[in-house]
Structures are given as structure tokens and as C-alpha cells.
């Protein structure tokens, strides 16, 4: 069971990779052929359906079958899996070395004061874009 799940997790990336190499909408049979013979057709369809649920592929009906197109790349799929791991694992802190740990409100005040005292104009983290004041450019 665990082995089957693991195989599927790795296959998701392969199937998505094959779709991205296709260069257009393709059928599940095309994906199966592309990945080599040892995958059952139903397995490929199952994985495609899982990818659809994760919103990294789209499908359109063409006659009696579906045509599949990728809507995201392998990195997006990896990000989804990583998020699931990070959200689900309560004690990941014991295993993964995080760049920063949680910041309680009191610490936030201390931290802002420290950074403001150290150098003006570089503490604004509200906007996502990197500040363009060039303060840290070499």
C-alpha cells in the first residue's frame, strides 16, 4: 500500500513532465506510450485525475475520450506537495532546519526596532516586490 502510494507520488511528476513535452493536448493513451509500456492505462488515467484535482492539468472532451493539457509545471506540483508536507507535519521543526522560526508579537516589535536602528528604509515587508533602494546591492 505504502509502496503503491509512493510510486504514484513519483509518477505524478513523470506524467506531468510528459504532458509538458507533448506541446499540445494529448490523450491518456499518448501519455501511456510516452512513459513506456510498464504502466497500465488505468494507472495513467488515475494519475491524470489526481493531477486534475490538484489543478495542475486541464482536460477537454474530444469524442469519446479526454484530451489533457498541463496548466502548471513540475515546480508548481512540487510546491503543492511541499505545502502539504509543511502544513500536515506538526513536528517538522524537529527535522527541517527553517531559516526563521515563528515570531511572536513581542518579538516582532523588538525586531522592527532593531532593523530600524540598523538601517533606514529596508524594513518594509508589506509589498512583495524587492525594495529598489539598492541598499543591499554590492
Amino acid at each position, binding site marked *: 500500500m505504502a509502496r503503491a502510494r*509512493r510510486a504514484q*507520488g*513519483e509518477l505524478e*511528476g*513523470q506524467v*506531468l*513532465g510528459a504532458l509538458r513535452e507533448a506541446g499540445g493536448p494529448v490523450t491518456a493513451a499518448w501519455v501511456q506510450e510516452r512513459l513506456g509500456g510498464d504502466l497500465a492505462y488505468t494507472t495513467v488515467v488515475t494519475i491524470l485525475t489526481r493531477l486534475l484535482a490538484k489543478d495542475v492539468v486541464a482536460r477537454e472532451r474530444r469524442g469519446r475520450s479526454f484530451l489533457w493539457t498541463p496548466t502548471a509545471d*513540475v*515546480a*508548481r*506540483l*512540487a*510546491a503543492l*506537495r*511541499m*505545502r*502539504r*508536507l*509543511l502544513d500536515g*507535519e506538526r*513536528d*517538522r521543526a*524537529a*527535522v*527541517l*532546519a*527553517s*531559516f*526563521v*522560526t*515563528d*515570531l*511572536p*508579537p*513581542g*518579538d*516582532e516589535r*523588538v*525586531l*522592527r526596532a*532593531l*532593523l530600524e*536602528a*540598523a*538601517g533606514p528604509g*529596508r*524594513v518594509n*515587508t508589506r509589498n*512583495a*516586490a*524587492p*525594495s529598489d533602494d539598492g*541598499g*543591499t*546591492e*554590492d
Partner: protein
Amino acid sequence: MGVFVFLPLVLPLTAWPVARLAEGRLHPRAATRLLTAIAVVMAGCSTLCLVLLMVVGTAQLPGNPLPDGWSDPEVGAAVPHDEIAGRAAIPALAAVAALCGRALHRHRRVIRLARRALTGLPGRAVCVLPDSTPYAYALPDRIVVSTALLDGLAPGERRALFAHERAHLAARHHRHLLAVHLAARANPFLRPLRTAVRYTAERWADEEAAGTVADRPTVAHAIGKAALLSRGTPAPTLAHLAATGPVPRRVAALLGPAPVARGWPAAFTTAGLAVWGAAAGTLVSAMSSANSAVTLFLILRAAAPL
């Protein structure tokens, strides 16, 4: 063996002063290595003594599978309060084994899931994932950074972030972290050492990053910005009443002068006394457990030759 068999169970207390003082008084690299070594040795000695007590305790139980001679009064007499201590050691050792086993299992599981999540990505060392949540993690062999975090940092700060994470990988910090985690499971008195090593390992990577980008304030800003970016919705806790957490302390340390890489504090300073106290505690712990192990081995061999 007398009371020596109990000493290693409580001697981790002698490492508390150094766990507290190492942060400010020792170079983070020296502190991480010293505290990890102390924790591993003390956890090993403590567990060995639990095993010895468990053997004595099990031999007293009716219907145990151990040789009959081992339940002789001479064996029990080797341990003070052998009936209580021996029986208490059985569940204690079981708890240690269960906790360590679970910690190892979770460790492997998280690493495996993370590796699986990243299969198929190009590049070996650095994975940049498109994600709106800012995070950066060091796996044993890979760095995972989200685009949300990178977008929030200036170019120099990104270099600091990657230098920090590469330092984790190069120094194999996950081994230190796992070692102190297991040690804290083996003996709860070692928990302050785990907390200290988690902090000093981050400080070590911070200092390596500061050396790589040759600009301490940039590293400080990278850490500060990353923490402000990734803070969640502040939970209504009592946290603000507690002492300042690790992130502001790391930033403050980087805004100050670089720590001296050279050696150890002089013996007759507070930090020096703490280091020597912990070293003496570790030595006594090792000698006590070795003494107890040899003594019990000789007693058991005399009681029932195998």
C-alpha cells in the same frame, strides 16, 4: 556500583549553565559542537544506566527469562533501593525506546516525504518553489525556498539566505539537530541543550553567511525580513510576556561585532566555569556508567556463569 548507577541520570543538570551561557560567550560553531557532544555522551550514559537498572529489576520479577542466579540477593544489593529503582527502570527504558523510535521514524518520514515532493525537479542543491507562502528549509541534501520569500528580499539578502542554507548543508547540521533531539528524548534533563543547539546551529549558519557575503547587516536584514514576511496571524498567546525569541537575538548578534573564533573562555570566568563544569559532569557521567556496567557485569558473572 552503589549510587554511581544513578549519577548519569541526573548529571545532565551540570550542563545547564553551559547551555545557557554558550549562546553569548562561545563561537556558535564551538558551542554547537560542544553541546552536541555533551548531549550525546550524557544521553548514552544515562540510557546505559537505565539498562543496568532494568536488568536488576527484571531479574527480581517472577518468571523472568534471565538466569536464576541473577535474582540472588547479592545482585540486588549492588543497587541501592533495588526493588523500587529496578522496577521503575523498566517503564522508563521502555518510554525512552518508544520516544526515540518515534522521533527517528518521524525524522525519516519527513525527509522521505520532502524528497518525494521534490522528485522530478531540475537541479540538485537548490529548489525554488512557486508558492505564495514565504519559507526556506534546509533538508539534509537540499535547500527549498519559496518564491514568496525570495521576492521579499533584496538581491544581497537573497545571497545571504542561500549562503545560510548552504552552510547548514556543508556542516551537516541536521545530524547535530537529530542527535540532540534523540538525546533530549533519552533524558528530559537534556532538553535545554536541544534548545541551545537549535539556536547555535542557526547562529553558526548566520556567521558563515556573514562571512560569505562579507556584510553582517545584510544577513541581519535578510533574517529580519524573512521573519516579518513569514509571521502568521499572531495567535492570542502569552508569548509577548516571555523572553525575546530566537529571531531578534540572531539579528542583534549579527548587528554586533563578529564572535571571536578563537578558542575557549578563560577558566575563571562564568562561561569558563560553565564549560568546565559541564565537561566534568560529562566525564563523571561516563566514568560512573562505565564503573556501574563493569561492576554489574562482574557480579552477574559471579552469580550465574553463562
